[in-house]
């Protein structure tokens, strides 16, 4: 059952990711991105990362996606939303991406992965919290600085008058 669910989620992720890239209208891309992000959250669950799944939904869907949709609405009239993207670089892009994919997969296949068998964790949040407060304290504080920088930078940028 869960095997089946896993493949469903994986398929959802990949198909909608394809839509994100290939859809003609930007707003449809954004909607497809919603499902991709959901799918990734689902994959996190399969990886026992429930907290990460929550974060994924909260930040990506509730935050970044909303921001992207706003961005689309701010910069687009319907006319330009409907116009599909240019195909000039499609061939080169497709080639590069395909090449990359092949390389990645062959690398994946050639390596032999060591897999530890671990029991399902009880509460990931607690561990994450402790790790954040101890081992990763510095990146944690740095993150706040990063956020501060992003906030000030973005606010300044969008305040700049033409």
């Amino acid at each position: 059952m869960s095997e089946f669910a896993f493949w469903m989620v994986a398929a959802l992720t990949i198909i909608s990711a394809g839509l994100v890239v290939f859809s003609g209208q930007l707003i449809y891309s954004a909607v497809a991105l919603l499902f991709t992000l959901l799918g990734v959250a689902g994959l996190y669950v399969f990886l026992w990362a429930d907290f990460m799944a929550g974060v994924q939904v909260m930040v990506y869907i509730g935050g970044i996606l909303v921001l992207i949709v706003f961005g689309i609405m701010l910069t687009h009239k319907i006319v330009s939303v409907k116009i599909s993207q240019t195909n000039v670089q499609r061939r080169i892009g497709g080639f590069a991406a395909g090449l990359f994919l092949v390389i990645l997969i062959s690398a994946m296949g050639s390596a032999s992965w060591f897999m530890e068998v671990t029991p399902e964790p009880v509460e990931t949040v607690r561990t994450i919290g402790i790790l954040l407060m101890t081992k990763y304290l510095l990146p944690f504080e740095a993150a706040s600085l990063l956020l501060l920088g992003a906030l000030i930078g973005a606010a300044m940028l969008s305040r700049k008058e033409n």
Partner: protein
Amino acid sequence: MYRDFGTILLAALLGIVMVFVPLLVQKLIAPSKKSREKLDTYECGEEVEGSAWLQFNIRFYIIALIFLIFDVEVVFLFPWAVVFKELGLLAFVEMGIFLVILIVGLAYVWVKTDLDWVKLKVAYGSGRYRKIKLEEKV
């Protein structure tokens, strides 16, 4: 863990079905007389001038932007809150620094009036502001 999230998946599917079924019933029993006028966009009875799909004002965007930063902050607070009692003062101070840095950000956008919807100019008067004028279009 799988079971709980499987429940959610199933519930989501169920939710879709539950929306779908009444719509189907409606399709069956509701009348449907389409006409050109009926399918027109509603605008208080007037002819619509222009599409609603146009570039909207940026104000909402700024809100979303500030929101995003604080959203991430909340995300960080959750794991901290869980271990807060365990780690005691240390965690408190650490998070204090984190928060203070972000509060600086908040104060910054507040002072720079990024949180205000429109910047209103006081032209003259005795009240809090007398004649309110929008900033000039640049």
